């Protein structure tokens, strides 16, 4: 393990209560400034893997180390600290649609406030300024006070990214960030994620359905099939044969 390693996943298994084995023996590292994509068919354990990292789901076996801190052995307080340091972006944006963009972005900071402060919306001026700054950076300066239900899909996802960024995260997890977006909005979102990794050096772990997108943005691609890593390497090494091995069908049968 080098200084650069942000996330170390060691031999992680996940067996759900109903007996479904979602992950088995998954091990990999993510270094600082790395853009890593996870590809694989539906049900291959991509989402489970992502949620084990910030312990939204408990791994059954193995361990995950986030900046040297064990995730599985963490107590309640430590889990909160880990979650504060990991930004998460979702397929369905997961915003509170009745609130405006600014309020949703500030939700990323809730973890650092007391219950009373957050209930009354007493955010510090510094955080509000930062939220507006991030919204400007993501091209949403016109939409700061817009109710989130009135935003387009791409804009909603940018609010989601802003919410993750205001946390000042050491890592960003993205669960199929572009699966509900049109091709153009998808490109915008992927560019922003890529820029964030490059400019701020925040590593990104992204679940993706689109193999071509994964190939063009990633430093490294991990292929999951039935909960096992069957491929891990540079985008150039991901051959058509390998893709068909990951998805279990020949690559002609896949929409690229």
């Amino acid at each position, binding site marked *: 393990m080098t200084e650069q390693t942000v996330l170390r996943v060691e031999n992680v298994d996940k067996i759900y209560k109903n007996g479904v084995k979602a992950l088995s023996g998954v091990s990999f590292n993510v270094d600082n400034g790395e853009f890593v994509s996870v590809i694989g068919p539906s049900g291959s354990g991509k989402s489970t893997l992502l949620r084990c990292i*910030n312990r*939204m789901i408990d791994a059954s076996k193995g361990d995950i180390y986030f900046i040297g801190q064990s995730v599985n052995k963490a107590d309640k307080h430590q889990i*909160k*600290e*880990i*979650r*504060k340091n*990991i*930004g*998460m972006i*979702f397929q*369905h*944006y*997961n*915003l*509170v*649609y*009745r*609130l405006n963009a600014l309020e949703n972005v500030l*939700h*990323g*900071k*809730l*973890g*650092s*406030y007391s*219950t009373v402060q*957050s*209930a009354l919306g007493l955010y510090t001026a510094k955080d509000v300024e930062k939220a507006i700054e991030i919204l400007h950076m993501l091209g949403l300066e016109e939409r700061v006070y817009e*109710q989130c*239900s009135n935003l387009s899909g791409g804009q909603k996802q940018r609010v*989601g990214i802003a*919410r*993750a960024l205001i*946390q000042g995260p050491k890592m960003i997890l993205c669960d199929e960030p572009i699966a509900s977006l049109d091709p153009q909005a998808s490109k915008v979102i992927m560019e922003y994620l890529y820029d964030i990794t490059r400019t701020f050096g925040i590593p990104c772990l992204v679940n993706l359905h689109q193999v071509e997108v994964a190939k063009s943005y990633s430093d490294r691609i991990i292929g999951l099939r039935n909960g096992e890593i069957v491929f891990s390497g540079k985008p150039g090494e991901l051959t058509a044969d390998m893709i068909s091995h990951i998805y279990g069908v020949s690559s002609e049968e896949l929409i690229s």
Partner: protein
Amino acid sequence: MNTYSESLQLNVGEIKIKKTKLGRYKLKKRDSKDKLVMVVIAAMFFSLIYYLGFEVDYKWDMFSPHIAKKIVMDFFRFDLVPADEKLGMLSRLTNTVLLGLLTTLLGAAVSFPLGLLAANNISSNKISTFVNAIVSFLRAVPTIVWVLIFVAGYGLSATTAIVGMTFHTIAFFVKSFSESFEEVDPGAIEALKASGASMPQIIFGAIVPSAYTKLISWIAMRTEINFAVAVVIGPAVGVPGTIGTAINVYSGHANYSAMGFGVMCVFLIALAFELIITRIKQTQII
């Protein structure tokens, strides 16, 4: 495209689709549940006919055309009601509306934390089931019965009406509030949890803002119900100064124009509530 539709046509011949007795294709699969529903409906229908036809004692001989005529003639003669009586009636109407509002707001205040406990996406499964079980028992007993139960403790007074009505209001709100909380998008809750927010922060950050308009519309609806209950509760437990008590007294004195005025007041308030609720529901859908 061509080959696809051709193969489809081929399949229709091969697949067996069930038909009804009338020769139409079956669109639904009926099971024993549907039959049970039919049996229950038929049983209720026949018992209703039996009851109306053979059991009810109509007492047509008690009907007096003279009194009926007097009621119809006097009912809308509001000019026969003296002005001071009208004013008195309006103040009683205000009391009644306030009784409805007070019990609703008291109930809502108590029900908010209980609703959070009863929502299964917020509290634990055990607590949620426990609270829901108690509340559904409380709800099964009608408001008026609760009020009559509290007569034992507080006598025939306004306190009895307030406590009894609040009691049933709580049972109603805990159920409706907790369902509103449960309908909140689980994704938003997940997102806040993933950023390190605590449960109270998730409640105030995501759950309450998302459920807010629903809570308001439940409160508006219950205010209307509680107003209606407040009207009839007056004569039932003898709450002085409510419109229901006044109407009851006028009815006893055969003062039909004053009674008509009272009923008209109640009707106008109920109409106003209806309009306000419709308005709230329209603005709520965002």
